[in-house]
């Protein structure tokens, strides 16, 4: 499925300073729906070029990284359980920097 990923708050530095990535993600074998959990590991493998520990901690994003799915806080849609559909826009913003 076609997705748009955006990285902000400094996370873009982990992906060659590109803020916006238009990607094509294939569902893992035997799976009907793509969840954020699947997407995160896909992103870690395919998009993050350096220092993955700044983006991911264990199964989920590093504490302090906000995730918006179609402009909506992923905490409202079940965090890792959130299902992703074709043409969705997912934004990752780090809050862990000076202000």
């Amino acid at each position, binding site marked *: 499925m076609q997705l748009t990923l955006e990285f*902000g*708050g*400094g996370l873009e*530095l982990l992906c060659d300073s590109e803020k916006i990535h238009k990607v094509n993600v294939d569902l893992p074998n035997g799976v009907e729906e793509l969840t954020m959990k699947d997407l995160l590991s896909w992103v870690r493998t395919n998009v993050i070029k350096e220092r993955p520990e700044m983006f991911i901690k264990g199964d989920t994003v590093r*504490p*302090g990284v*906000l995730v*918006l*799915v*179609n*402009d*909506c*806080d992923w*905490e*409202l*849609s*079940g965090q890792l*359980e*959130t*299902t992703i*559909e074709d043409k*969705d*826009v997912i*934004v990752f*913003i*780090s*809050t*862990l*920097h*000076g*202000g």
Partner: protein
Amino acid sequence: MERGEAKSKKAGGPPRLCCICNERRPVLKRPRTLQQICRECFYEVFEEEIHQAIVNNGLFKSGERVAIGASGGKDSTVLAYVLSELNKRHSYGLDLFLLSIDEGITGYRDDSLETVKRNELQYGLPLKILSYKDLYGWTMDDIVKMIGLKNNCTFCGVFRRQALDRGAALLKVDKLVTGHNADDIAETVLLNILRGDIARLSRCTSITTGEDGPIPRCKPFKYTYEKEIVIYPFAVSNPHSHTYAYFKKLDYFSTECIYSPNAYRGFAREFIKDLERLRFFVQTFAFYIRQELFWISLNPVKTSELRRPRKCLSKGRVSVAATFLARNGAKRVLLDGLNRGLPKMSIGRARGGGVNGGDHKKETKAGSTVKTLESKQCGSLDF
């Protein structure tokens, strides 16, 4: 619109509505209250709560000249925007300025200063920039070349506080505001506990500090969670939404300071963020408030003693406010060290010799003033 609703259906249960207006779909779960709130209600509530913090704590008086410590980062940019909006909307009658400090960090500060210069145009607020090079003869690049990455944040913190005071004096302002948010203060409380710094602990949660000093400072974002500060520019003007504020985007600069990887604050921050994920520790906000009350009740005599002004060691004068404890002295000692090629003498502990060696006599004298200096990540304007 339909997508969001479809997702909540899939997650189980009927689609929820914003708990305030009950009309629109929620886009954010508020970190403190866990309320589900839509975009429009969020920015109304966000701005209103800051207005209440300002009014209930009597932060400003009409006619005051106020400098906003502006680093170009998310907190100070949102602060400048919101304060300027509220100033108009509620007629605070303030004369607002942007004050920026250039520490001389190539590839970091020079970029964030570009953001502040844009803010000057976007918000129509006059900007003043002061540099470490002009004030002290040293940039952070020079300092790091000399002392490495171990205690560089200590230098930067001391120099920046002084620089802000100087800038405020040059602008002839009555007050300085900084963008410190609830998360920052929670980290500071934890750092002070870990260091056993009771003096700072009793002061660090005050919304206004230094009233008896050269320039009072306040933190209108004291009760505001970092998550909301980060989301706010998206609420105000999101390129994916159909409505734009008259800025295309709240312009802010965001990278971690390149010289700060070892700053202790980073560990406190990670710890608090990890704790927040545990169900029984959702309220870091309550955490720091409780801590303040706990310490004050435990040591009423000690804390009142600590509030007495201390003598500035370098000139023997009584330093005007305990809050800026020997700040001038600390800066002088650090600068002397740099200029004499012995920068580490002032960083060591008072007893048992310094971490980094140097002139021992100076160290014991300087150690007692400088050993409790806080390290804070560069790029964050600090109290």
